[in-house]
Each structure stands twice: as structure tokens, then as C-alpha cells.
């Protein structure tokens, strides 16, 4: 019956894919920012007033109007005369401010679906706990309706869509009421067509766009009230739903609110994974040749991290040049930990006195050699083969001479040095 998938119930981008509209949005930007700042200030006032003013009907309605101003919401009612004196209104769900707009259309109202503003007077809804713990919910509901003497608003879809279709209703709500009046809301943002909400967007993000947009127009339309009579709660919920759907000329889909949140979570995870892959791809995929060259460099210099090798290779395009650059210290990197545990420890423990004396052999040759002076380090590394080989030969001879002298002195041998 339905060709719509969950993916059709969510918007993906804030701005429409339309060059004229985008140009318009750019031109509107300065004005939008001024509006945003003004409305932010006003929201602060709203939050403060909400905390200090007493909770009475006229003040509720004042705060409600202030909230509409803060978020640039205009409410128009198509057929206010059709409003009946019922205890329960049922509406479709499009945004986090549905109940604020409907309060304006109806007057006194007790919205009972959870919203992010649970505790803020003027925006807040009545917290009755989860409808799924039926008994507790029912007791609280009866108590609050008696206290407040106001009709109840339920949004049984339990999560907002972009308005292209209706989600399944949670029929638990319909077990408490005999007679309900359905109403349809539609939201329009003329001119810029900025989406109310996008996939994975946060409440704060959505609210900022409310404040930025010139205004957001909510239209409320009352439908004839309906009675449960002998219907089961499931059947009643479904009839109400079909009624709203046909009035809005949209499909009533088989997806529930939890289907949507499940799907959204999956999409977000997918998107994150794709982002990571794309970031990696930028770095890895461009050139298999680079990968091959990097692995050659890594084989020779295993302690150099691949990222540093890639960076240099992408400039030099030559294995040998990169190895030279690394060996000569032109590439900055933090050496990678290798898993091997060098056997040097046992050796250096036996000869702990080596730490500082890296002296040139020539300077020590006329004093008594000690094991600590067996260090044959050269002060320079020759620039050509002849120099290096000569230094190597000299150091070998010095080492043997020093070892011989040390041995003779240690054993008090009567042999010329």
C-alpha cells in the first residue's frame, strides 16, 4: 500500500536545492542574523519570566504568545468554528513546537507528549511519565486534568516527521478517552523554504533556524470529533489516523516512532563511517605507487610512522630521497614504539659507568685506560669513503692498543706496552 520509506520522512539538508532560493538566503543572511540575535535575547527574557511568574492561565497564555514571538511562529487556524468542546485533541507531529502553536489555536491546553522543554513554563508540557506504564499514567492524567481543567493534547505518532506521511499511532493513548477531536497541522516557511529539522540535527540547531528564519507558519485545521463507542483502542487509533491522513492527503505508513529512531541511528553511524573512510581515502588511495614506495621506506626504517613517510614521499616521489631525508633529520616524526625488547639491558647493567664519557680516544690515550674508556666513538663521520675508512682503521688500532694496555696493567705483566 505504501511506496514511502523512512528515508522519505526525513529532510537531509536545511536549504532547498534551488539556486534562486540559495541566493535569496545569502541576501537574507544579515537580516537573519539580526533577527536571530533579537530572538535570542527575547528567549532569555522568556526563560527568566517563566521561572518567576506564577503558574496561572492568563500568564500561561502570555508566555505562550511570547514563545511564539521568540521562535517567529505564526499560527493560523483554518476553521476555528469547528473547534468542539472535547477533552482530548489528537494531532499529527511535525516539530518540537507543535504544542505551542496548538495552544495558541485552542487556548488552554495540556500537552502531554514529551518535548525538550519539559520543565520550562510557557513551553513546557505536562510530564505524565510513559504512556506504556498504563496505570501510573492514567492516575496522573486524571489528577492533572482535574487540577487544570484544560483539554489534553496528544501527538500519538511520538516523533516528528517532515509531514510527508503519518507514522503509526501509539494506541495506548486511545484507551483513556471516549471522544477525541483530531486536528491537522502543517508547517510552512515561505520564501527561504528552510527545513524545520534535518537528519540527526539537534534541538539547539533546529531552534537557531527557527530564530533565523523570517517566520514559521503553522496552520491548524480542526476535523470533526470522533467517538470510540464499541471500538477497541487499536481500531479507534487507526480510524483517527486514517482521518488525519486523508485530510492532509498523505499516506499512513506502517512505521512506528521507534522504527524511525532506529533508522536514524543507523544512518548517523553510516555517515560517520563514510566520513572516516573518506578521510582515510584522501590519504591512502590516491596512488598505489605511493603505497608501494611507502612500504619500501617502512621496511628500511620501521620505526618511522607511515604518516610521516607519506608526507615526505608525496613531495619527493622517490624512495631513496625520502630515506635520505629521514636519515638526515629533515623529516619530523615521533618514532614508533617497536615491540622488541632490546637485549642491551643486561649488557649495560654490567657496565653502568659508560654514561658520559664519549671522549675522543686521542685525549685519553696517555692516561691509564679503564673499561669506561673503551668507547671508540668518533667526533665526526667522514664525508667520503677514504676519510671514513681511515678513521675506522685508527679506531680499531686504538681499541686493540687500549685493551692490551689495560690487560697488561691489570695483570701486572712484565711486557712492554
Amino acid at each position, binding site marked *: 500500500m505504501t511506496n514511502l520509506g523512512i528515508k522519505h520522512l526525513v529532510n537531509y539538508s536545511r536549504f532547498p536545492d534551488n539556486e534562486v532560493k540559495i541566493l535569496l538566503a545569502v541576501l537574507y543572511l544579515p537580516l537573519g542574523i539580526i533577527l536571530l540575535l533579537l530572538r535570542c535575547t527575547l528567549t532569555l527574557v522568556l526563560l527568566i519570566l517563566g521561572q518567576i511568574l506564577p503558574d496561572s492561565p492568563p500568564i500561561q497564555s502570555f508566555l505562550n504568545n511570547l514563545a511564539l514571538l521568540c521562535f517567529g511562529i505564526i499560527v493560523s487556524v483554518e476553521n476555528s468554528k469547528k473547534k468542539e468542546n472535547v477533552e482530548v485533541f489528537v494531532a499529527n507531529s511535525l516539530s518540537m513546537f507543535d504544542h505551542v502553536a496548538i495552544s495558541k489555536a485552542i487556548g488552554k491546553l495540556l500537552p502531554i507528549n514529551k518535548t525538550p522543554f519539559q520543565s520550562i513554563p510557557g513551553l513546557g508540557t505536562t510530564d505524565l511519565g510513559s504512556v506504556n506504564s498504563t496505570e501510573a499514567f492514567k492516575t496522573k492524567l486524571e489528577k492533572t486534568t482535574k487540577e487544570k481543567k484544560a483539554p489534553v493534547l496528544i501527538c500519538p505518532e511520538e516523533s516528528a516527521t517532515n509531514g510527508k506521511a503519518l507514522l503509526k499511532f501509539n494506541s495506548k493513548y486511545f484507551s483513556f478517552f471516549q471522544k477525541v477531536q483530531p486536528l491537522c497541522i502543517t508547517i510552512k516557511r515561505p520564501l527561504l523554504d528552510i527545513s524545520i529539522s534535518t537528519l540527526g540535527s539537534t534541538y539547539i540547531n533546529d531552534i537557531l533556524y527557527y530564530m533565523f528564519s523570517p517566520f514559521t507558519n503553522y496552520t491548524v485545521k480542526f476535523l470533526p470529533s470522533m467517538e470510540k463507542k464499541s471500538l477497541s483502542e487499536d481500531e479507534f487509533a487507526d480510524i483517527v489516523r486514517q482521518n488525519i491522513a486523508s485530510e492532509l492527503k498523505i499516506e499512513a505508513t506502517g512505521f512506528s516512532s521507534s522504527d524511525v529512531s532506529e533508522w536514524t541511528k543507523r544512518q548517523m553511524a553510516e555517515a560517520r563511517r563514510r566520513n572516516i573512510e573518506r578521510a582515510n581515502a584522501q590519504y591512502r588511495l590516491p596512488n598505489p605507487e605511493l603505497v608501494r614506495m611507502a612500504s619500501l621506506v617502512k621496511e*628500511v626504517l620501521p620505526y618511522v610512522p607511515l604518516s610521516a613517510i607519506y608526507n615526505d614521499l608525496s613531495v619527493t616521489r622517490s624512495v631513496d630521497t625520502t*630515506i635520505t631525508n629521514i636519515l638526515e633529520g629533515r623529516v619530523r616524526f615521533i618514532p614508533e614504539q617497536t615491540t*622488541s625488547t632490546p637485549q642491551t639491558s643486561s649488557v649495560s647493567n654490567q657496565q653502568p659507568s659508560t654514561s658520559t664519557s664519549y671522549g675522543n680516544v686521542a685525549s685519553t690515550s696517555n692516561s691509564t685506560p679503564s673499561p669506561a674508556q673503551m668507547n*671508540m*666513538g668518533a667526533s665526526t663521520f667522514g664525508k667520503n669513503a677514504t676519510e671514513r*675508512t681511515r678513521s675506522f682503521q685508527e679506531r680499531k688500532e686504538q*681499541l*686493540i692498543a687500549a685493551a*692490551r694496555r689495560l690487560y697488561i696493567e691489570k695483570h701486572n705483566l712484565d*711486557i712492554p706496552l
Partner: protein
Amino acid sequence: MAGSALRRLMAEYKQLTLNPPEGIIAGPKNEENFFEWEALIIGPEGTCFEGGVFPAKLTFPPDYPLSPPKMQFTCDMFHPNIYSDGRVCISILHAPGDDPMGYESSAERWSPVQSVEKILLSVVSMLAEPNDESGANVDAAKMWRENREEFSRIAENLVRKTLGIPQLLG
């Protein structure tokens, strides 16, 4: 990739020239063949090889550092882990999986993160603490276990020989 082997060897040569471990020298005998090195190792203090200067030859494969070099002492040696022809038998000179003697279990193996310096330091350790389970030189292993005095005397004479000092008489 002899080119990368050369560069790596040059880097190690430079490191060993400027900052060698105590009592160790190593470098190519003749730079016309960079794959053949000579090393001098001083026998570690407090062992029967103390004070000797033992020359050895290191032969590097063209795919160094992927494969390990070979090491062979060029002086007379008498040690449980050194063959009578001077070849050194320690785990760091074998790649993992390549286990001709079947005695190397958890010991450290060759990999490109090892280096000439680490090999030479391992050899110094080996001189200090022979592994008598290795059968490179069975006679030496047996004597090390059963007649330490005689072993020490032989070692002492080897030390003297490397220093050009007359032998002790048995």
C-alpha cells in the same frame, strides 16, 4: 632493493661511528663492498673473556634489513654458541620461523627493527652468559657445564692471543 639496504647500512655505520656502545667498533672493511663489515668486540668485564678484542666478520644480504646478516668470528673462539669455524649462533641472527637448531623458543628473533648494534650487544651478552643448551660447539658446552676452570683457562688464552700476549701454560 640494494639501494635501500645501502642507505640503511650507511645510517647504521654513521650511528656506530659517532655513538658506539662501550667496547664495540663496527664498519665496512672496505667501502667498495658495503655488505661486508668488520667488528671488534671487547670481552665483557667480569667474565672469562674479559679484556679480549675479538674480531668478527658481518655479511649482509642484499635485502637487508629484511633478512639478517651472518656473523663469524675471525679469531679462534671456544664458546658453546660459536661453531668451531667462528660462525655465531644466536636467535637475533635468525628470522622467525627459521630455526635450524630447534632450540630457540621465546628468544628474540631478527626483524627489520633490529640493528647491527643490537646484534653486537647480544653477542656481548652471549660471551658473558653462554647458552649451554645450544649445540653449536658441543665440546665447549660440555666443558662450560662440567669443567669451568678449564674453560676459563682456554678463554684466557684466547684473550691473550687476540692481544698478542704470550699464552699461559696449562
